[in-house]
């Protein structure tokens, strides 16, 4: 049986990379949009 732990690591890593990237990107776009509009 192939190393099943590898699949688990892949799944968790991929998930959190994707979630992390989205979190980072949405916050960055928001900060930039706000500074452009002069809000807050």
């Amino acid at each position: 049986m192939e190393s099943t732990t590898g699949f688990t690591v892949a799944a968790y890593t991929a998930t959190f990379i994707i979630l992390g990237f989205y979190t980072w990107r949405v916050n960055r776009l928001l900060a930039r949009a706000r500074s452009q509009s002069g809000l807050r």
Partner: protein
Amino acid sequence: MAQGQRIERLGWLAGWLAVPALGFGVYLSIFWAPEDFMMGNVQRIMYVHFPSWIATAISYLTAFVCSIAYLIKRRPTMDYLAHAGVSVGVLFNTTGLLTGSIWGRPTWGVWWTWDARLTTTALMLVIFLGYLAVRSFLEDPEARARIAALVATIGFFTLPIVYQSVKWWRTLHQPQSSPNTVDPDMVVALRVMFVAFALLAAYLISRRYALARVEGERERAELQAEA
């Protein structure tokens, strides 16, 4: 606009709660929960797979409700929130499909099966990617909000029919399988991850909503300046 601030404040709260919840949940999932007797460590993928679906459902449901609310009341807040719901929904839809596929490979030997749930969720992704595509091609804010709301509403409505028909289509071939989470410790870890992902979804929706609102207000100001 007070409603917008309330959404953003709740979002911040959800975000701050999400971090420890996720940390605790991942710890439980990877180290604390027992290993599955039959599947081994691969089964731990379920602690990110099923919570992804919870987050997907929350997000799309938000989009659906807000789309209908927009069609009735025409308040821009509802459009921004619907957009945020779809965006975050697509995100978790993707992680759900990805983890499902990765889980399936060592378990069933294939990257994909045509089982009803998997197929329906893949179709959900297509429907809501279509929503985002339609938005990107419309410049008039009101037309965009209205047409997007209709795409979301109709698309969401057809999901139960899609699911049922795929299920009937498939049950001739194989029964649907659910992993048995009989072990109570597994249930604990799963529940913590459900909460953590739900909180993360709420936080991300609030941030995406805030972005949509800033962009929407700027767009409106620009259009008024042109007029």
